[in-house]
């Protein structure tokens, strides 16, 4: 496809499109997997390698992210007969996916390995609950947490809400505008048999669900699930021999921060998030701009996180995120659909991987699970987005994933097809 004229670069241009995502895989999104994170990670990585048309012996790099709630790479490697030339398990949740893809590119560029599997395995509902209830809620409060958890300011929703609230104050953003994110993602999930929640919700149902912490209603919050997810990255050259059409990595920005990342609220405007800084790396590195993007994957731990990132990465003017997410743009059939699998709000919570997986499938033109299969084994997409119908976006050549750790930290990636 034709690319717009180059603007500026902060990476060597030759890295653009030099690496590709060749395999994606996941386990079933459940509440109560009944298996260990080792098993979840093993099945997800195995599925991603299979999807790539590779063998475990072809993988020689492994990366994972976790927060003391998962299994290290070496055990997954052992289960699958992978002998890593490099592995690293990092501490982290949201925004790790894109950041680790950037690290994988660096590893291969440095000649340290040739194909990297990245996984996240979590029993986020049945073991270590991502919302922070259970064992995490009664751990001793010390160090920096003395200025947070001691005040009943612990869960992600509680920690992020002053940002969300201030955005409503600064820009007049209305609850029902933001609730449209859940309503639209639930429409997408209703066309995704893999989604944990397939039920469609209306904006009214979202804003009339009970409050968790203002401005968040229950249905503004994502679903905690148990799942393993995995992605295989290799060079664009090797990708030619893999099973699916190539999905090329155009540019990455990893865990970019607002000032005062020790406590980002010290530096305002607090209604601005890390994307405001990350976009100055993402777009020049990718050689494209937000107007060129066909599909977004904006992290939806909460309805608000989707909106704030789309705004700060420049998909609309600052302050107009409420209108952008509620005017139909982000719906399947709209100008630029977001989280076509239903995302964290509906499909399942993976700390970002399922949104990258979905965009890989969109770029392969293979996101569908419902349309009729032709004699060549490929879906005949109907582009009829009614409940239970098609999920493939008709024109999908460029995607952007916007990963969120917290208001002060984010990652992003642009991918394209051939």
């Amino acid at each position: 496809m034709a690319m717009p004229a180059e603007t500026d670069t902060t990476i060597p241009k030759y890295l653009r499109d030099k690496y590709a995502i060749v395999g994606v895989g996941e386990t079933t999104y459940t509440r109560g997997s009944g298996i260990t994170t080792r098993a979840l990670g093993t099945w997800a990585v195995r599925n991603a390698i299979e999807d790539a048309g590779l063998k475990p012996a072809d993988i020689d790099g492994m990366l994972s992210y976790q927060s003391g709630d998962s299994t290290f790479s070496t055990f997954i490697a052992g289960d699958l007969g992978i002998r890593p030339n490099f592995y690293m398990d990092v501490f982290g949740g949201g925004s790790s996916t894109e950041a680790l893809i950037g690290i994988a590119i660096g590893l291969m560029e440095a000649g340290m390995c040739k194909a990297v599997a990245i996984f996240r395995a979590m029993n986020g509902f049945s073991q270590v609950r991502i919302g922070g209830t259970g064992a995490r809620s009664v751990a001793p409060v010390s160090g920096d947490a003395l200025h947070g958890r001691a005040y009943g300011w612990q869960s992600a929703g509680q920690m992020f809400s002053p940002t969300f609230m201030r955005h409503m104050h600064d820009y007049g953003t209305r609850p029902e505008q933001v609730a449209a994110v859940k309503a639209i993602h639930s429409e997408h999930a209703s066309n995704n048999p893999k989604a944990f929640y397939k039920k469609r919700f209306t904006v009214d149902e979202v804003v009339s669900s009970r409050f968790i912490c203002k401005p968040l209603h229950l249905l503004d919050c994502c679903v905690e699930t148990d799942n393993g997810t995995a992605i295989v990255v290799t060079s664009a050259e090797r990708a030619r021999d893999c099973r699916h059409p190539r999905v090329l990595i155009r540019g990455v920005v990893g865990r970019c921060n607002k000032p005062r990342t020790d406590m980002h609220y010290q530096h305002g405007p607090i209604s601005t998030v890390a994307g405001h800084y990350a976009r100055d790396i993402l777009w020049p590195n990718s050689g494209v701009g937000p107007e060129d993007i066909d599909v977004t994957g904006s992290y939806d731990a909460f309805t608000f996180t989707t909106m704030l990132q789309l705004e700060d990465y420049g998909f609309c003017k600052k302050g107009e995120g409420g209108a952008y997410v509620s005017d139909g743009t982000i719906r399947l059939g709209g100008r630029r659909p977001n989280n076509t699998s239903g995302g964290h709000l509906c499909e399942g919570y993976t700390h970002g991987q399922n949104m990258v997986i979905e965009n890989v499938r969109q770029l392969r033109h293979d996101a569908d699970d419902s349309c009729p299969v032709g004699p060549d084994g490929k879906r005949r997409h109907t582009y009829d987005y009614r409940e239970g119908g098609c999920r493939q976006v008709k024109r999908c050549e460029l995607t952007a994933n916007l990963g969120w750790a917290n208001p002060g930290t984010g990652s992003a990636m642009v991918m394209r097809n051939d």
Partner: protein
Amino acid sequence: MSIQATYLGMPLDINDLDVENLAYFKHCAAHDFHLQKCSACGLLRYPPTTACPWCASPKSEWMAVEGRGAVHSYTEVHHAIQPAFRQHTPYLVLLVDLDTQKGKPTEHEALRVVGNLVTPDGTLAPPDQVRKVGIGTRVRMVYADVTEGLSLPHWTIDESAPQPAKPWRYPE
């Protein structure tokens, strides 16, 4: 000296190595709010840090700071995560811009000090007070005494200050 104590059913723990937090909470225990002032550039900082966020100087001294300001943003928690807070919902977590050093070193910065809305004796505020407070509400610092050497700074409505006619609240 390290401190272990229980507050609202939560174990709090400051170890011997954490000299910044030990000093911070010692001043709070004397109900005399202090922040670190950088010896090189003269800026105050919050929360306690090892070096200056603006000039990286490791040297600082503790300075008395007036505990008054206005609510910059907040959340009103209805579904508590920590068991100890469940009997106190809804409660407010406030981010308060101190009057001291507001808008410095840049217009977007302030010493934004976290605390709950409490009554003057340091207990979590009842619902009628929670409903009154929003962005812009003037508050003053009060303390919840936990143990020797450890009190938590909190916020209460500043009855002596002129209040905005209508502080901004989440639309009901």
